[in-house]
Every structure is written in structure tokens, then in C-alpha cells.
């Protein structure tokens, strides 16, 4: 186990670092958008929407991410040419976003449930539609209470993006495999990988902490 295994391959790691950053950014955005839509569906008055979102959440969050990624990346292209053309990077982003959207949805739903029912009732009695009630009154308050769990999901998502390596997308984990093969020094190479993940996740934790303080209710 030698330090040079990492220092000699900084450029390799850096390429992976950028890859993980891209996967995380796109995956997080996607899962936040989809998760919000799903949470809205789960608290909506329409039974079919509630059922659809519930089924989605229960399937996606109960299926291991590596299984999901391989099923998507190798399964869906069987449908035909336009989908066949999608890159493995796209599949990785899709898998990461679809999977974590289920968790975002549940975190948000707990936030929605924490907003006093009087808020929704007041909004509806003022004549706001369900959509307006959600987007203008309930969700803004809900997001504040779920900053810590969303931060948790974001950190988990950053690390889970390593699933991309199983479908040959350039990220920290994939690049580490090259280093392992090149140096035959897996321990140092993996320690390097851990370092670069921490470089992403530790600041994420700090930022979430700051955001939490800034958005906290003044009581």
C-alpha cells in the first residue's frame, strides 16, 4: 500500500471526481423534481394519483439500486432503436434520479404532514386551488422542516452514484478500478476513492447544516 498509488494518478481520480459531481448534480435535481411531484400526488385528493405514487415509491425504494441500474440500462434498450441510442451516462442519471425520488417523496410527505392542517384549510377557504395551496402555502413550509432528511438523501445519493461504475460510466469508483488494475494496489486506490468521496460529501453536510439554520422557523 503506497501513497504514490494515489498521487501518481491524481488526473485519473480528478476525471472521476468530475464524473461523480455531474452524476450527483443531475441525479439530485432529477430526484428533487420527481420527488416533489410524487409527494404532491401522494397527498392529493385524487385516489388514482395517490395509488400511482404509492406503488412507485414502494417498488423503487425496495429494489436495490445496482439491480435497478442494470435492469434499466440493459432492459429498456430491448424496446427499440430510439432508446437503444441512449448513453450509459443517461441510464446512470435516470437510475439514480428515479431511485432517490422515492426517498425524496417520503421525506417531503412527512414535511407536508407536519404543516398544520389549518394552513391548508385557510388557503382553500381563500379560494386557492389544490395546486396553488401546495405550491404557495404547504410545500414552502414543508421544505423547511425536511432540510435535514433531504441533506441525508443528498449525501446518500452522492455515494450511491457509484452504481454508475457498474455500467461503465466515468466516476470516482470506476476510475478507482482502473487505478487498482494498473497498480495492483487496491487498498491505497480505494483509500484514494474514499478521500475523493469525502471531498464531496463533507462540504455537502456543512452546506446542509447552514441551510438548515437559515431556513429554520423563528419561534
Amino acid at each position, binding site marked *: 500500500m503506497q501513497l504514490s498509488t494515489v498521487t501518481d494518478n491524481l488526473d485519473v481520480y480528478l476525471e472521476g471526481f468530475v464524473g461523480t459531481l455531474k452524476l450527483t448534480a443531475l441525479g439530485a435535481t432529477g430526484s428533487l423534481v420527481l420527488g416533489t411531484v410524487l409527494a404532491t400526488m401522494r397527498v392529493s385528493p385524487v385516489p388514482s394519483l395517490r395509488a400511482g405514487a404509492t406503488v412507485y415509491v414502494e417498488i423503487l425504494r425496495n429494489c436495490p439500486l445496482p439491480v435497478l441500474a*442494470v435492469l434499466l440500462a*440493459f432492459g429498456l434498450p430491448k424496446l427499440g432503436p430510439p432508446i437503444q441510442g441512449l448513453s450509459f451516462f443517461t441510464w446512470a442519471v435516470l437510475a439514480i434520479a428515479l431511485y432517490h425520488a422515492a426517498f425524496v417523496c417520503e421525506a417531503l410527505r412527512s414535511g407536508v404532514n407536519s404543516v398544520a392542517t389549518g394552513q391548508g384549510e385557510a388557503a382553500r377557504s381563500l379560494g386557492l386551488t389544490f395546486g396553488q395551496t401546495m405550491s404557495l402555502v404547504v410545500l414552502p413550509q414543508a421544505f423547511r422542516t425536511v432540510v435535514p432528511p433531504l441533506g441525508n438523501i443528498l449525501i446518500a445519493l452522492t455515494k450511491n452514484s457509484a452504481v454508475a461504475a457498474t455500467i*461503465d460510466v466515468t466516476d470516482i469508483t470506476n476510475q478507482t478500478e482502473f487505478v487498482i488494475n494498473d497498480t*495492483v494496489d*487496491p487498498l491505497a486506490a480505494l483509500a484514494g476513492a474514499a478521500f475523493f468521496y469525502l471531498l464531496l460529501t463533507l462540504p455537502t453536510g456543512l452546506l446542509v447544516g447552514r441551510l438548515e439554520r437559515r431556513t429554520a422557523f423563528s419561534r
Partner: protein
Amino acid sequence: MTPRTRLRIGATLAAVALAATACGGSSDGDDLGSDDKKPTFASDTTMGKIQAKGTMTVGTKFDQPLYGEKTLSGDVEGFDVEIARLIADELGVKVNFVEAVSKNREPFIQNGNVDIVVATYTINDKRKKIVDFAGPYYQTGQSLMVRKDDSAINSKDDLAGKKVCSVEGSTPAERIKTEAPKALVTLFDAYGKCATALENKQVDAVTTDEAILLGLVSKKPDAYKVVGETFSEEPYGIGLKKGDQAFRDFLNDFVEKIYEDGRWKKALEKTVGKVQDSLPEPPAVDRYTSA
């Protein structure tokens, strides 16, 4: 087989079994009716330690048709598996197979998780620095597999701009980068993914040792075909802990022994012979000096 002969065989078997039980007490642990004595080794050698344990742990592939494959029924079969079983038989011990994938073979050997690795393990200089190799006990070469209906790729020279799939940490994955520098290389952790991606048209070719490709073709002869000449020499060795010269000598001697007595050929016919008509000759054992 007529009922009568079946009866006769049954009776013979019963007699043999009886005889074996009868003499079980006097002869110490000899195999049923077999008179070839298992050699015993000093207890400080690896051979002796394995005999004391009664089991030899072998790292082999579980996803490599014809070489090391775990079937749905849970059996492990293939040429590598046969070689490992012959070694265990020589030591008079049982074999315990654990899955070795390309990237965990060295740690498995170094940490002592396994006694030996027999897992389509190409002998090369980089690996020689980390582990020792006995053998080679088999030699193949790198080749290409394409979709059956693809007439555009006929050799490695047709790969410019094409997507070629192989497995991470394998020798062919490295070599294709120099043999076909303009090819776009995609690397997965299992050949099954490469084959599926080939079928899906997500990649255009799969490259690795020819015999492995033939194994894949044997699973789906309507979907894939192997094209072109082989463009490398891949000698497969038995990986063991670095510096264990006595064990290495034992394994090298043993490989030569099974070349001589035909057990090597029999193992090959039973496995690789199922899809390949012309079987390779046994490669000469390479007793290189371990640095």
C-alpha cells in the same frame, strides 16, 4: 441396459461397498478400492497444511462458461474447476470453491482467503510481482465476437469508431487499446453484460480470450459469432501466494504429471471440447524465477 445387467451391476456395487466397509477399519482412510496412495507432505508446507485442513479453498470464476461456471443447480463446472479438483484429488482433500472475479484475485491470494486461484488467470509481468504462478496449464488467444448478422466487422482492423466491450481488469481489455487504438472501449464487470449490450446494439463487438467467447456463443448460437484470427497469447496459470516455492514446484510437477497421464486432456475434452473441435496442445510449464 437390460434389467438383468442392471441387477448384476447393482450387486457388484453392493459387494464393493461391503468390502470397502469391511476393510475401512484397518486401512487408514484409503479411497474405496483405489490402491494409489496419496502422498503426505511435511506439516510446515502448504500442501501439508491443506491436508491437515482437509479442504482446499479455490478461487474460480462463477460466470465463465466452459471454465468456471456455477450452474442453476449450484454445481460449479468447467475446465478450471476440473483442474482444481484434480489437484485436490492429488492431495486427498475436498475442494471448496469461492467466486473470484478479475479484480479480487490478487487480494484473495495475498490475504489467504484462498489456497489457489484457478480462474482464467493470465500470467503477466505485472501480476508476477504480486503473486506467483504455476503452469501455464492452458493457452488461448484474444479474439472478437459480433452479432451474428453483422458483416461489417471481420477482424480487429474493422474496429475504428466501433464500440468494443470487455471486462475490467482483464488482459484483453488492456490489449484492445493498443491493437485497435481507434475503437471505443466499454468495460463492465461481467461478460454477460457485454453480451447483452451486444445484442441490444449498445456495443458492436465483445473482445476477450477466444475460448470464453466460444462459451458465450454456445449459450446463444443464433445471436453471436466469433470472427477473425486470435491476436495474442494468453497463458492461464494457477495463482498462489508469492514466495511459496515448494507449493509452486508441487503444482508445476502436478501439471506436467496430468499432461503425461492424459487426465489434462480428458478434463479439456469434457469441458472446452463441448464447443471447440480442435483442442489446443498443452503449453510447456514455465518455471520462471520468482523475483
